[in-house]
């Protein structure tokens, strides 16, 4: 079982690979006008996280029906994404 800290580390490393992020925090926006990521960065980030999780023998589809149907997007910031991943694994 992966810890939340490990999930946060994966998100941090993938973000570093995808974009030149100035400051990492759990409140960092991943989508919307406050985000430092453009749409391609965001898509790439999702793929990189899926691949990183797979390396830990966890196969998940992040952009699932479940994710898309939630009232509040689980992709809005690092914290909500980490929470969502913890629910999925």
């Amino acid at each position: 079982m992966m810890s939340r800290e490990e999930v946060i580390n994966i998100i941090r490393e993938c973000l570093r690979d995808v974009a030149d992020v100035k400051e990492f925090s759990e409140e960092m926006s991943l989508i919307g006008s406050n985000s430092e990521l453009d749409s391609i960065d965001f898509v790439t980030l999702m793929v990189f996280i899926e691949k990183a999780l797979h390396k830990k023998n966890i196969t998940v589809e992040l952009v699932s029906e479940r994710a898309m149907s939630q009232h509040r997007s689980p992709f809005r910031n690092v914290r909500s994404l980490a929470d969502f991943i913890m629910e999925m694994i």
Partner: protein
Amino acid sequence: MKTILITGTSSGIGKSLAMYYICKGYRVIGCSRRETTIKSPDYEHYQVDITDQKAVMKMISEIYDNHQSIDVLINNAGVASMNHSFLMPIDSICKILDTNVIGTFLMSRECAKIMMIQHQGRIVNFTSFAVPLKLEGEAVYAASKAAVITLTEILAREYAGFGITVNAVAPPAVETDMIKGVPKAKMDALLQRQAIHRYGTAEEVARVIDFFIDPLNGMITGQTIYMAGI
């Protein structure tokens, strides 16, 4: 050694393409619902249903883990069922749409995730002359292949920024299991609608694929080539 992934390699054009690309020096990975009869050290087979998302994701991840690349995807797998629409069972409709549309989409998406990491990739889809010829008795099959053309054109745009091209080939009539149940008179009439009135071969189809997957042809994307002069 380049890695090429071909769906539907248990028979027909897919099997011939697998043999063709083994001979050309590729590492060929094939998949189908059935077991393979291809025996080669340069061939690996996955027994997978391409409409099963989890199974597809697992297969693609395993291929990437083992070989660290997927250079080319050929979405050859397809099913057909020729019936007048009044006689078309719903199960057959679902099976055709699942394999031809959802299978092509899933395979393309999961391979593109690898190709975007590589910053390069080639995807070749299979469509059909049934679309422009509007063949009676093939309403669902032709609709599924029309969807493949649309997928090709839109995925080409979505993936272009990652160095991935997406194109489609519409083979001529080829003598495979898919048409063995079609009466000879019907096939003869169909051949007459081609500019070139004969059956094609899998190797001739491969020539078109060779063009699409050539590393120098990075400006060719979102295109469909109809063979035999449709």
